[in-house]
């Protein structure tokens, strides 16, 4: 860590009987129907184990424990394919500045035993799972994104979801000749 940059903690290590927004689950099973289903065979689901972050507001999680939990997919920097736009430093910096609305960056973590590299939250990979199921997954030591970084993440997600594409944008404002 660069000693010249002021430090404000991004993460804490927690264990699970109180699930909160920003909890990072590293090996969480998520389920989806297969792209093709056999209408003549037994019902099938596809299960992948992946890194996810809890997006549901903490107060909603406390208020209604029968509800579903919203999660977004995480990708560590080292698993981004080299042909992906985010493999370029310039685009990664754009994502950091919030100019790539589908992505949000989470800082590296150097907490002992929980070190992790720069991570991309992909807002296009969204999952829901039952609260009790997620609680079970969180019932071991895991990282939690701390305020105000988790609110920043939540705001970025909202911005992604509510964005509007204009048919014709206002032209750039340039210096008058």
């Amino acid at each position, binding site marked *: 860590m660069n000693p010249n940059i002021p430090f404000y903690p991004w993460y804490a290590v927690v264990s699970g009987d109180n699930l909160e927004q920003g909890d990072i689950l590293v090996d969480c099973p998520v389920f989806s129907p297969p792209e093709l289903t056999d209408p003549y065979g037994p019902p099938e689901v596809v299960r992948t184990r992946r890194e996810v972050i809890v997006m549901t507001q903490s107060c909603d999680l406390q208020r209604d424990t029968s509800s579903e939990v919203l999660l977004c997919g995480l990708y560590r920097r080292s698993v981004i394919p080299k042909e992906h736009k985010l493999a370029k430093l310039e685009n990664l910096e754009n994502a950091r500045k919030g100019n*790539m609305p589908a992505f949000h960056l989470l800082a590296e973590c150097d907490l002992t035993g929980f070190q992790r590299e720069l991570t991309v939250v992909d807002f296009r990979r969204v999952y829901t799972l039952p609260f009790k199921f997620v609680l079970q997954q969180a019932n071991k030591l895991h990282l939690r994104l701390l305020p105000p970084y988790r609110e920043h993440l939540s705001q970025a997600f909202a911005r992604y979801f509510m964005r509007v594409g204009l048919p014709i944008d206002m032209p750039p404002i340039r210096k008058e000749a």
Partner: protein
Amino acid sequence: MIEQKKGLRMSETNAGAVRAKIAKDRQSSPVLDEEILDWDVPSINSDLPSDTIRVRVRDVEPEPIQDI
């Protein structure tokens, strides 16, 4: 009767085609593991008991991050 037989042949053909497509699909995302689970499906009407369905669960690798 003839119509019924035709219908049966059609559905068998469709089943074969669907299974062939599924087999091709699975080649592109190899199955790591597979198990049969009994899942409780909560009833929409809370007065009714939940139902149980038997499902085949296929484990596959998560896909890489999609480009934009």
